[in-house]
C-alpha cells in the first residue's frame, strides 16, 4: 500500500482554482456551523444535565425574533453560495470562441478522441498548455460522463445528442480522466489520461502523429462516398439546401420556426432528416442512421463547417458531383484501434 496519499486534488485548469475558492468558503461556513451546533449541544447536555428527578425546567415556547434571525441569516449565506456557484457554472458552460475543438465519442468502455487535424486518440488526450479546449461529445450507446478531476470539469455524454465541455489547462502534467456515469460492466475501467504539454511539445507531438488528412478532409471524402453531393450541390439541379456557409447561419424551417444551423442540427439532419425540414424543400432526404456512425457524423460536420459562403473568396467550395457511382456504404461499426493508427483513413482517401 502506498505510504503517501493525496488529500486534495491537483488544480490544473483556469476554472479549478475558482471552484476551489468557493469550496473553501463552503468548507469554512460549514465547519463553523457544524462546530457551533456540536459545541452548543454538548455544552447544553453537560451544563443542563439532570441533577434530580424533581428538576423542572422553565417553559419557553419560542421566540419569533430568533426564528426570523436564524432563518434569514442562513438564507442570506445560502444565496451567496448560489450566486457565486452560478457564476462559475455560467463560465463552465460558455466556451471561448477561440477554443480548439476536440471531438469525443464515448462507447462502452472507451473514449475515442479526435483532434481537428484528424489525429485520433483512444483513452488519452494530449492538449497544449494555456489554450482553451472545447470538447464536443456524444455517445454511441449509453450515457457516459467525461470527468477530469484536476480540471474540475464534468459533463454527461449522452447518446443521440452533443454535449459540450471546455477547459484551459494551467499546469503541464498527466491527469486522470474518468467516466463518471455508470455505464455497465467495465465502467471502472473506462479511464484514461489527459496530457497537458507545453505548446512546443504539443506541436511536435501533433506533427509526429502521422496525421494525414484533417477531420474536414475525411468529411469531404464521406460526402463524396455517400453521394450527398447529388442533392446538395451549388447549381440549379440541387434538390437539397446548399451547404456552403450554412454552419452557424439562422435558417427558416417549413413550420415557420427559425433555428441556428449548429452541430446538433446538422447531426439530426443526417440521421433524422425530416425532423426539421427547411422551408421550400421536400422531405425526400433518406436517413443515414446505421450507415454513418457518430465519428463519421463529426467528420461531416467538420467538412460542412469548412464550406464557406458562395460569395466569399476563401474557404472550401463544394464540387459538383461527377458521374461516378457512389462507393459501397461504410459499415456502421467503428474501427477503433491503437492510438496513432488509422486504417479507416486509408480507405477514405479520394
Amino acid at each position, binding site marked *: 500500500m502506498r505510504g503517501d496519499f493525496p488529500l486534495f486534488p491537483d488544480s490544473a485548469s483556469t476554472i479549478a482554482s475558482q471552484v476551489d475558492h468557493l469550496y473553501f468558503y463552503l468548507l469554512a461556513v460549514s465547519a463553523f456551523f457544524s462546530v457551533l451546533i456540536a459545541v452548543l449541544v454538548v455544552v447544553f447536555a453537560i451544563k*443542563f444535565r439532570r441533577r434530580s428527578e424533581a428538576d423542572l425546567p422553565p417553559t419557553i415556547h419560542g421566540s419569533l425574533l430568533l426564528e426570523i434571525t436564524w432563518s434569514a441569516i442562513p*438564507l442570506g449565506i*445560502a444565496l451567496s453560495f448560489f450566486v457565486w456557484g452560478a457564476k462559475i457554472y455560467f463560465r463552465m458552460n460558455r466556451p471561448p470562441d477561440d477554443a480548439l475543438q476536440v471531438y469525443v465519442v464515448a462507447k462502452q468502455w472507451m473514449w475515442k478522441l479526435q483532434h481537428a487535424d484528424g489525429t485520433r486518440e483512444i483513452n488519452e488526450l494530449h492538449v497544449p498548455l494555456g489554450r482553451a479546449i472545447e470538447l464536443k461529445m456524444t455517445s454511441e450507446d449509453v450515457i457516459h460522463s467525461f470527468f477530469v478531476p484536476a480540471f474540475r470539469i464534468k459533463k454527461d455524454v449522452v*447518446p443521440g445528442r452533443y454535449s459540450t465541455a471546455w477547459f484551459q489547462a494551467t499546469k503541464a502534467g498527466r491527469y486522470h480522466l474518468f467516466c463518471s*456515469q455508470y455505464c455497465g460492466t467495465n465502467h471502472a475501467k473506462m479511464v484514461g489520461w489527459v496530457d497537458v504539454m507545453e505548446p512546443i511539445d504539443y506541436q511536435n507531438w501533433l506533427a509526429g502523429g502521422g496525421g494525414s488528412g484533417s477531420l474536414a478532409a475525411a468529411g469531404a471524402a464521406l460526402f463524396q462516398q455517400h453521394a450527398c453531393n447529388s442533392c446538395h450541390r451549388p447549381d440549379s439541379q440541387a434538390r437539397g439546401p446548399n451547404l456552403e456557409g450554412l454552419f452557424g447561419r439562422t435558417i427558416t424551417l417549413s413550420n415557420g420556426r427559425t433555428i441556428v444551423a449548429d452541430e446538433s442540427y446538422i447531426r439530426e439532419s443526417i440521421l433524422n432528416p425530416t425532423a426539421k425540414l427547411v422551408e421550400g424543400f421536400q422531405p425526400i432526404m433518406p436517413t443515414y442512421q446505421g450507415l454513418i456512425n457518430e465519428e463519421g457524423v463529426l467528420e461531416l460536420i467538420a467538412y460542412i463547417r469548412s464550406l464557406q459562403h458562395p460569395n466569399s473568396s476563401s474557404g472550401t467550395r463544394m464540387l459538383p458531383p461527377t458521374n461516378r457511382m457512389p462507393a459501397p456504404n461504410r459499415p456502421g461499426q467503428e474501427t477503433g484501434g491503437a492510438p496513432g493508427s488509422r486504417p479507416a483513413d486509408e480507405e477514405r482517401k479520394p
Partner: protein
Amino acid sequence: MSAEMTPPLVDAPPRESFLTAGYGVKSWLLTRDHKRIALLYLASITFFFFLGGLFALLIRLELLTPEGDLVQPETYNKLFTMHGIVMVFFFLIPSIPAVLGNFFIPMMIGAKDLAFPRLNLLSWYVYMIGGLFTLWAVVHGGVDTGWTFYAPFSTVSSSSHVLPAAIGIFITGFSSILTGLNFIVTIHTMRAPGMTWFRLPLFVWSHYATSLIMVLGTPVIAVTLLLVALERIFHLGFFDPALGGDPVLFQHLFWFYSHPAVYIMVLPAMGVVSEIVPTFARKSVFGYRFVAYASVAIAVLGFLVWGHHMFVSGQSVYAGLFFSLLSFFVAIPSAVKVFNWTATMYKGSISWRTPMLYAIGFIGLFTIGGLTGLFLATLGVDVHVHDTYFIIAHFHYIMVGGAIMGYLGGIHYWWPKISGKLYSEGLAKFAAFVVFVGFNLTFFPQFILGYLGMPRRYHSYPPEFQVLNVMSTAGASILGFGYVLPLAYLFWSMRYGRDASSNPWGATGLEWQTTSPPPTENFPVTPVVDWEPYEYRPKKEVAAVG
C-alpha cells in the same frame, strides 16, 4: 397530565395487552391491529436491513484494494445496485413510518386504530410481495443498473433481471401509497376531542408531511418503472435515442420522485427527534409551530428541486439555476429545526439515556450531511463532485447518520411501550457509541475521496485512493458490529428484561398514558385533550386524570 414516573411493575402477573390478545400465526398474519402490523413490518424491514448491509460489507471489502480482485465487475455492479434498492425501497422508506408511525400515530391522536386497518394489513402484504419479486431478482443473478436505473442502459443495454426488480419496486410503492393515504385520512378525521392540529405531537406533523410526499411522489416512480418495463418488453423508444426517445426524460421522471423520497426517509426521523429531545430535556419544544410548518415546507419545496441531480446531464443552464436556488431554499426549514432542537435543550434538564444519545447524534450528523448538501446545491462545485464519493458521503450522512440514528433512537425510546420491557441501558449506550464512531470513520474519508475525484460505482480505483478506502472499510466493520448489538440485546430484553411502567421516561404524549404494552384498543376510554403539547407541570400541580 403529570410528568411523574409511576413505579415499575416488577413481578406483576402477565398483563393483557395487544401482544397477548390472541396467539398463533393466524392471529398475527390476519391481524387488523395497527400495533401488530407495525411489528410485522419491524420483522421484515430488519431482514432487509441486514441483507442490504451484507451487500455493503461486500462492497467495502472489495474496495480494500485498488484492483477489482474480490468479485467480478458484473458482480460488483450488482452488489451496489442491490444495496441501493434494498436499502432505499425496502428499508429506509418504510422504516419509521411503517413501524413507529403505524404503532404510534393512532395512539398519539387518541384513536383506536388507523382509519383503514385492513388497508394497513394489505400494505404489509403488498410490501412483502414486492420484496419477494426483488428477492427473486437477487437470487437469480441480480440487477446491475444502479438503483437509479438510468436509461438507455437499463432499457436497452443491461442483460440483468431489470424487470423483476422493477416490478418488485413498483408493487412495494403501493405499500407506501397505502400507508401515506391511511395516515392522511387518520390524522384528518380521527383526532380525539380537543386534539387540534396545533396540539398534535410533532411526530404526527412529520408523518403528515411525509405522507403527502408518499402519496404524491410514489405514483410517479411507478409510472416511470412502468415505462421502463414497457420499453424493455416491447422494444419501445420512450428513452432510447435510436428510436427517437430522450434518455434525459427518464432522469426527470425518476428524480421527480426520488428526490422527495429522501424527505420520506428523513422527515420521520426528524419527527422522532422532536419527541425524544423534549422528553429527555423535560422541556417543551422550542418553536413548536415553526417546527411543524418546517415539516410541511420541506415536503412542498422538496418537490421542486429534482433537477439538482442533473446539473451535468445536459439540461439547460437556466434549469440549473432554478433548481440550485430552490435547493438552497429547501435547506432553510431543516436548519430551523436543528436550531429549535438545540434551543429546546437550553436550560432543560438533560438526561443522557440512549434515545437522547441517538437524538443528539442525529442533530450533529444531520447538520453535517445537510451542510454538505449545500455544496451540492452550489452549481460550480457540484459539477466537480457529482457522481463521486462526495455524493455518497453526503447522502449516507443523512440516511445513516440521520435517518437510521433517528430510527434507532425511536426504537430505543418506544421499546418499553411496545414490548413492555426495559433493555440494558449500559449495552445500549455502548452500541450507540460504537455506531457513532463506526459511522464517522466509514463516511468522513469519503468526502475527501470525492473531492479528490474518485467516482462512485467504481469496482477498481487508482492506488493513491487506497488509504482512505481502507479507513472507510475499517469504519464499516465497526458500524456493522454496532448494528448487530441492538438486535441482540433487544431480543434478550423481550425474554429477560425488567418490566416497564407505562411512562418510564416521564414523557408527555397520549401514548404514555396507557399501559406498556398497550391494550388492543389502545385506550380503555377515549381521552379528551385539553393541554398543549409537551407540557410538563410540576408534581404538585398534577390534576387527577380520569
